């Protein structure tokens, strides 16, 4: 079995009236079949309300399927006995850095998860140091998190997750509130964790330039899985993506526009470098 496997996954949100009677049910996601291999970097795109975050919460057993099954590293999320194991396998980083930092000193914040699972002190010290070095925040270890920039706070949050040695990290719009350099630093850290530490990365984002870095992209639309493929395959379908309220990187859109004017460029240009290379060939 794959590292993560979703089989006909559906999730329902139930609304209750003032007396606590069930009023109606909303299917946030439905009929999701997907597999993710260990070490893969997968981006999930989709409009607001398409079910991305709901899907992400199933990967950490924060939500349980109304129908279908989710297996994380072979463990079924419906089975209560597996919860601890699953939550140690998958770590989550959320959108707002200020909502997920609780320590008054950086290293204390990173140690929080380890203390909760009763890790011996020596081991905590070692792992906190290692993870702060990994995300490039070592020099701030004894500072207050309040003074850090948004990007730095997110890297501290990531360090807190990395310290738990998860096999998989889910980032739910973790760059949405950051400035360009903060975004770049977080994405560099995420790519490094994926490539050198072999951690599986699932990245939910509205920034198309970030999705370009993934091995594979899943596109959600109205609770369903609408598209699946490599960034090249997905972003070549400019018109289809726009119909799903999404976008493509600026250079991809530019290539699409120039093609329409008769320039002989491929549809699947994703980066500035590729664009320069192809224009040089035409030149």
């Amino acid at each position, binding site marked *: 079995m794959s590292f993560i496997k979703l089989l006909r996954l559906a999730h329902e949100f139930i609304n209750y009236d003032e007396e606590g009677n069930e009023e109606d049910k909303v299917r946030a996601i439905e009929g999701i079949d997907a597999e993710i291999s260990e070490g893969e970097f997968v981006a999930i795109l*989709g*409009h*607001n*309300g*398409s079910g991305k975050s709901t899907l992400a919460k199933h990967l950490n057993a924060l939500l349980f399927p109304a129908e279908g099954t989710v297996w994380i590293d072979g463990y079924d999320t419906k089975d209560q006995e597996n919860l601890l194991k699953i939550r140690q396998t998958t770590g989550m980083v959320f*959108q707002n850095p200020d909502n997920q930092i609780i320590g008054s000193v950086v290293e204390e914040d990173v140690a929080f998860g380890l203390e909760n699972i009763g890790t011996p002190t020596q081991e905590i010290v070692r792992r906190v140091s290692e993870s702060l070095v990994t995300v490039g925040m070592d020099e701030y270890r004894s500072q207050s998190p309040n003074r850090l*920039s*948004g*990007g730095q706070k997110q890297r501290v949050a990531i360090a807190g997750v990395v310290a738990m040695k998860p096999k998989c990290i889910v980032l739910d*719009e973790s760059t*949405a*509130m*950051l*400035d*360009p*350099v*903060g*975004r*770049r630093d977080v994405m560099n850290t995420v790519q490094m964790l994926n490539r050198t530490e072999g951690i599986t990365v699932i990245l939910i984002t*509205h920034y*198309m*330039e970030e999705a370009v870095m993934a091995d594979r992209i899943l596109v959600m639309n109205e609770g369903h899985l609408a598209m699946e493929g490599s960034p090249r395959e997905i972003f070549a379908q400019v018109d289809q993506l*726009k119909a799903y*309220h*999404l*976008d493509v*990187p*600026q*250079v991809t*859109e*530019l290539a699409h*526009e*120039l093609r*329409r*004017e*008769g*320039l002989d460029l491929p549809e699947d240009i994703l980066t*500035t*470098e590729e*664009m*320069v*290379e192809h*224009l*040089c*060939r*035409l*030149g």
Partner: protein
Amino acid sequence: MSIRLEHISLDYQDGGIVRHAIRDVSLEIEDNTFVGLIGHTGSGKSSLIQHMNGLIRPTAGKVFYNGEDIYQEGYSLRQLRNKVGLVFQYPEHQLFEESVFKDVCYGPKNQGLTDQECQERAREALRLVGFPEEAYKKSPFELSGGQKRRAAIAGVLAMNPEVLILDEPTAGLDPMGRDEILDQLKKLKEQRNITIILVSHSMEDMALYAERLIVMDHGRIAYDGTPKEIFSHYQELEKIGLAAPQVTYLMHALKEKGFDVSTDIMTVAQAKAEILRVFGKEPSDQSASDQYAQACKDSASGTGKQNMPDRKCVSEDSGEGSLC
């Protein structure tokens, strides 16, 4: 008619140390302009905008609205806040009424308007932000992210402000929701003559919408000018946590490869026109054609080089640049 800040500074105490959030900033924002405010996290953007409607009082310096000192005796800050509307980050967290319509009525109601006037204002504001009429009675909690954001902006618009300041109104929205909100803001400026001051981390959006860009760095104004002028400093921008739009980098890379392209390009439409010009092709549709004419004009009046298509690609150093 304008907002004018004169030598304002903002200091605060932090564990016995004095920190400076704003350092001697002077600036004037004229009526009916679309101003972008950018800067790294902690650069002072949010502090700065809160000075503009008297939510934060500067440690030193003066704030004027339409020529009047807002801290002079007898000046009504309450009136000022009706004229200068501020939409905070994630404004949908502040929706609280049981229906969208009621929520939007809340502001005008506090201004002392009659029920009928409030309803008219709310209807008008919701129409202006493009909120669907069939959803007026819905609870704010039933809405999508984009709809919530619109409802929250309508709540401020219903107070009939002359200036609308928005702190990252598109953060967390999908690309279509983002474009829709920004288009609506542009329309508000054009049709209602409302001054828009927009804080954003998206350089691409700023390139498309802002007429003037103010760049903050460590509590100071680092740059102030048209987006074109600002993004020409792309290397300096990176040093202060910012960047230029992706196509600007593309044009610089093309120039380095020997293409005779202009580098003050910020949008996909401009890049398209400029590349077509260099390849000696005329675009097919009208709007692209206008951009194209502009590109040719800029090029002719520009760097002293002729506007002859230069298709030769010069490889700069023998080893690496052998793409071409």
